[in-house]
């Protein structure tokens, strides 16, 4: 049952598994609690001439059941914590080896993509900047893509559902995150932090493609921006 959009990132599968793991616990808890809630409603309906039992519940004999239930809940909670901790670290901590480093700048209302120039280093004067509505971020597949998220004006949020990745983009700071896409294709980028009238139109794409296609695209960018980059120097 694929209730999620197709997963194309290396760490996406872990989140899906985490979801199903939590679902197991939740379902058990749900069924048990429903039983605890519904059963007495049937068994202990008002009957003539039967008086309710006098149970204050403050004695160990009765309250121990609540304690047991809470202990089980706490235990399952920490099991979940333990399982999700790796996934969290993997997503939030950037790998040392970055194959491609790009800049993603949010503005009202578009995503701007910054590719390193011929010198291969980001944030230098020869960077190539793509700032067109509904433009695409081209990345090679099976490579660690490390990107620096920035915002020019207000808070945006970079959401790539197929990669299970989301990160708020705050002005005034640079957030460095990464993903590694495993399948060629064109995927939606959306902004999930309300940012104005065209918030719902702030949609761009990630195009994951094979390595040579990607190189070809970058070269075309360089030729197109050749003059600009040289004049900027």
């Amino acid at each position, binding site marked *: 049952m694929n209730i999620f959009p197709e997963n194309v990132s290396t760490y996406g599968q872990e989140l899906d598994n985490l979801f199903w793991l939590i679902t197991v616990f939740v379902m058990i808890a749900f069924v048990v609690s429903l039983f605890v809630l519904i059963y007495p409603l049937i068994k202990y309906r008002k009957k003539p001439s039967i008086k309710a039992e006098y149970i*204050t519940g403050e004695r160990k004999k009765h309250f121990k059941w*609540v304690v047991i239930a809470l202990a089980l809940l706490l235990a399952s909670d920490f099991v979940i914590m333990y399982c999700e901790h790796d996934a969290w670290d993997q997503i939030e901590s950037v790998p040392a080896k970055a194959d491609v480093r790009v800049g993603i700048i949010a503005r009202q209302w578009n995503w701007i993509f910054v590719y390193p120039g011929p010198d291969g280093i980001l944030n230098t004067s020869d960077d190539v900047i793509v700032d067109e509505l509904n433009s695409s971020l081209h990345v090679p597949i099976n490579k660690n893509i490390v990107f620096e998220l920035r915002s020019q004006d207000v808070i945006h949020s970079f959401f790539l559902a197929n990669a299970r990745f989301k990160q708020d983009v*705050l002005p005034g700071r640079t957030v460095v995150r990464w993903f590694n896409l495993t399948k060629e294709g064109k995927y939606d980028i959306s902004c999930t932090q309300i940012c104005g009238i065209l918030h719902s139109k702030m949609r761009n794409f990630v195009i994951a493609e094979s390595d040579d296609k990607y190189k070809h695209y970058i070269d075309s960018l360089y030729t197109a921006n050749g003059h600009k980059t040289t004049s900027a120097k």
Partner: protein
Amino acid sequence: MDAISHKQSFWTKYIFSTDHKVIGMQYAIMGIIMAGVGGFLAYIFRYNLAFPGAYIPLFGHLSAMQYNAFVTCHGMIMVFWVGMPVLLSSLGNLLIPLMIGTDDMAFPTVNMLSFWIFFVSALVLLSSFFVPGGAFGGGWTMYPPFSAGGYVNKNPAFFKELFSGTSLMILAVALELVAMLMGGINFLVTTINKRAKGMTPFKIPIVVWFINIASVIFMFSVGPLVAGAFMLLFDNVLGTGFYDPARGGDPMLWEHLFWFFGHPEVYVLLLPALGVLAEVFPVFSRKPLFAYKPIVYLALVSAILSVLVWAHHQFVAGIDPRMATFFSIGTILISIPFAGIFLSFMATLWGGSIRFTVPMMWALGFIGLFLIGGLTGLYLGSNAFDIYAHDTYFVVTHFHYTLFPDIFFGFFAAVYFWFPKFTGKTLNSALGKLHFWCTFFFFNGTWFVLFFNGLAGQHRRINDYSDFSLIMKEPYMSFEKFATVCAILLILSQFIFLYNLFTSLAKAKTSVRNPWQSNTLEWLAESPPPHGNFETYPEVYRGPYDYSVPGSTEDFLPQNVPVAHGEAEAIANVQNGITTSTNTI
């Protein structure tokens, strides 16, 4: 005290009254009116989500700007102008003095002032719809710099900074918080100082305990936000840069200031409603509340923990990952006391003799729905999955499954339960049951399907999904339509309640004082209680939940009934299993 009540003119008696009951009613009525506004906004944007760009009956066409403004104001209104007044102020004002057996609040004038400040804040909020530029549309979390420096509402008029929707919204929230602060001081002082003779702390009904704990949480968590609201207001009006990175500020500060209050606020809304459950369950299962003292302790623990978990709303906001883990653990820990409270409530049903009255049905519905809301919280509390689920409809659905039962089911349980006391009339129970079942089914119809939209990656606050291929496909679009139809029916079914309310108010008074055969002190006063509440101040001898006490012929013993000879022995015998307690009457 009769002399006082006779002297009063209409204005001092019903409008500028210092009587806690009248003020409580005023809060409740105000809350219902604002709920109408919030519901209408919900109808508008739900309709727009199902049929983008279509003509909306009773409104017209919805622009993107209006959409943002309406979603924002819907959230704001439902939390600050419905939840707070109805659950905290209204219930607190109506119940605390009666339940602790005193004549009025400690500071009646402050009480009246607090309502009128609240009233003004509501007017300010509503006025923001009509200023040029429209109401504030930056999400109810008001994240700057979007909410600062006139990003949202460009108002061409004179004094544009002050009379922009943004500033008016901030002003309204600040006033509302001040009103609630005054109310909170009143509740605490009244409960600490004005309790009836013999009402020791562990003879206080749970609802009074919980309203006071909620007030404490509110008072201690709101301070930083008030300071932050000042800064945000100055950012808008004077052009300072507290939250503007280009001017040295930092929006992350607001996120912390806001959620430092915003998360405890959830418990401020939850605790009074839980208190209502704690009153309803024992009465209608004729059984003592399960684990009275542990419940109080659990609530106190949750109050302490509630200020240590706020940043789990910011997992993807770029906070320090190690802190995220810390706050994730805090979130898990705070789920424990509330789970304990809910389990105790369920355990109260076991071995009772249950009557399915209307308040009981609302209370049970509350538990059932909140179960779903609470359990889906497990997904979001685990910070890794929150990376995906944050700001999607999964989150929206989760907090509607917590807040809707909390605010509305809790409130309706209270209304159907205490209506006879405060009006001397009874609501029609057949209509009440119809109201309950309609609300229950249409609420689930509205929200359950949207869990799947959220998991499919549908993100929040988008007025038009036509660009997003993930959402613009079956079954998600038909889910949207289904949810909208159910939402409209949900809103319509509330008119059953209004009809029931007005027809019942038109009926003649019934002089019965204690229709539910309940134990707490408010049922000793005549209904409706006069100014000054009690003929003679009651004296308290026993806890609030002595139902079906062994050896007593009646199955309820009000708090002012002295402890009979041999009662303790009878109880001890039953609890030690010497004699059985299910003795026939």
